[in-house]
């Protein structure tokens, strides 16, 4: 149990330290246009990667969860129809939940 506590606290401290590091980098670093562009594009790359991994990933393997995929598809449809953010989320979760409730996927 003690070991687990150490793991919990070290993880928590490490995660916080990383957040602080990002905010502490001197602003002058961002004067470089390539660095600035990199910082602009990082969220796009990482959030797109998270979207993909959370949709198709199952631990260390890839899997096709039809309900989840349908939920994401519903989200894309809602986005194309310019639905508000919350509607997108509700539609996505609702589509996945409905398919599972019906036993379709």
């Amino acid at each position, binding site marked *: 149990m003690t070991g687990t506590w150490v793991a919990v606290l070290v993880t928590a401290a490490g995660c916080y330290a990383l957040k602080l590091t990002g905010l502490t980098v001197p602003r002058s670093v961002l004067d470089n*246009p390539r660095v600035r*562009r990199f910082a602009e594009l*990082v969220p*796009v790359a990482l959030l797109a990667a998270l979207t993909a991994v959370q949709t198709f990933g199952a631990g260390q393997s890839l899997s096709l969860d039809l309900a989840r995929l349908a939920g*994401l598809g519903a989200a894309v449809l809602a986005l194309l129809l310019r639905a508000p953010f919350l509607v997108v989320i509700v539609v996505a*979760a609702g589509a996945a939940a409905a398919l599972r409730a019906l036993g379709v996927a």
Partner: protein
Amino acid sequence: MTEKTSGLAAASGGPAASVDVPTASGPAAASALPAAGGGPTARPIRDGVGLGLAVGTSGLAFGAAAVGSGLSVAQACVLSLIAFTGASQFALAGSIATGGSLIGGVAGAVLLGSRNALYGLRMTGVLAPRGARRLLIAHGVIDETTAVTLAQPDAASARLAFRATFATLYLTWNLSTLLGAYGAGRLGSPQSLGLDVVGPAAFLALIWPQLRAGRTERAVGLLGAAIALTATPFLPPGVPVILAATAALAGALVTPARPAEPPPPEPGPAAAGLP
């Protein structure tokens, strides 16, 4: 967070934070409800509170998963309070569940948190954190707050959105962690409620404006997703997502930002670095 409202006014007065808000995505910002009613402050708050509530409830899943993995209720709650970055927390719980080495589990979880440092690099220009406040702001720099903040059309809205998202998400995530840890197994499974789709759908909705903004953004997004999926079978959970940052690196090398310091007032396709 409320006591910081005065700071916002001061901060928004300064033109300083101009490195900043994604000019290309601009006000088209999708998440981003075409302001049907409500003043200029309504939208950032609505976006932030909405996402905070929606994603925060997945703390139920974390609490339940953590206790199921062998963590105590207190350990689950400490992680949510201090680590406060969902993916790392799930990673640690997962590795404890499999009985793997604790050092490996910690390393994976912390590595996964390194993307928040990259977000911070991007957010520092918008949030302009100073002094002791930096310590508090830093804690809130995670996927969701970054996405909502950067989807705002101007720096003042961005700071407001950050606070709304951070405050709502922090409260909801921690309360739902507690509930999930205690109630593990008694609620419907997160899957039956479709909660496993909330994360992906939210992330996609939040980068949507940027994906629409330019060819480079779309390419970087697709490349990032492809890199992460390709690497998933070969690397520990969490690492593939970090590796996806190389897509941003490629994008930056191909289309550097224009050297001009202040971004143009109007969002133009030029900002997207179209060839």
